[in-house]
């Protein structure tokens, strides 16, 4: 449970930009149809890589991760969880835009 809390904490700190990108892509899909899906995924992937890349550059020695390491959480856990939740939110935003 604690690990899950910390994984969520890590995601929440990065969520504003990710949600904004999801909303933008979902709006484009609604406007141009599912043909925009492939381009949408590329935009989403770019935003994710941008966030992780900036973090990587600002913290070359991975000092911030020791907070998570001490709770048994790896960088892979953090990144995988962020990608998964981001994807689920993306699907949810598309669904919501479709309904309303």
């Amino acid at each position: 449970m604690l690990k899950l809390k910390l994984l969520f904490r890590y995601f929440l700190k990065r969520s504003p930009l990710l949600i904004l990108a999801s909303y933008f892509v979902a709006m484009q899909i609604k406007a141009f149809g599912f043909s925009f899906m492939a381009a949408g995924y590329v935009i989403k992937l770019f935003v994710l890589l941008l966030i992780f890349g900036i973090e990587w550059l600002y913290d070359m020695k991975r000092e911030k991760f020791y907070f998570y390491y001490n709770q048994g959480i790896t960088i892979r856990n953090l990144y995988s969880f962020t990608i998964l939740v981001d994807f689920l939110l993306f699907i949810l935003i598309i669904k919501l835009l479709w309904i309303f």
Partner: protein
Amino acid sequence: MDILEIDGVYLKFGYEEVLNSIYLKCETGKITGVLGSNGCGKSCLLKIIFGSLLPQTKSLRVNSKTILKPYLRTGEVKYLPQFHFIPGSVSVKKAFKLFGINFEEFITHFPSLEEIKSTRFKYLSGGEKRIIETYLILKSQSKFVLLDEPFSHIAPIYINTIIELIQEEKHEKGIIITDHMYKYVTEISDDLYLLKDGWNKKVKNLSELEFYKYARL
């Protein structure tokens, strides 16, 4: 009693060899001190033991069982890095909750820090951060604790309290400590190792520190 042993460590960054001939043993109930000059690889060695730094080769065993990344095992090893590791946005109260440590007990040891309970880490001084981080790591549930420079930025009065806490915790844990305030380290250590030019040596007599040009006694 739990025993942690590491040997066969070979670590190099590019062409620079950092560690090449290391043997270190830590037992629960004992404090193991690691001394060495700046840049000799003390922090790297602790990171290798913790599992966050993977060298070219190593053999790390806990109770004769090989482990690659001890930090992935809950309750095995906790590590206090030499930098501040708790995110600035986390409040002191929240940090204690996340580590499962009682703040009221902390206040009995450091009464002057009571007022910072709701303060976020980014607003604390370097010393306050260090005291809290050291306390959290020391008190966390684990068999072994790795302390990298726990006394830096800390006022002498608090250093004594931290030493008392380390002595208290060693009854249940194995503690590996490294710090440039070597007098404190030699005072509390049951076993002492000196790290130099990539190899290490168990120190039996403090005069060896002078012989190997680590300190002037």
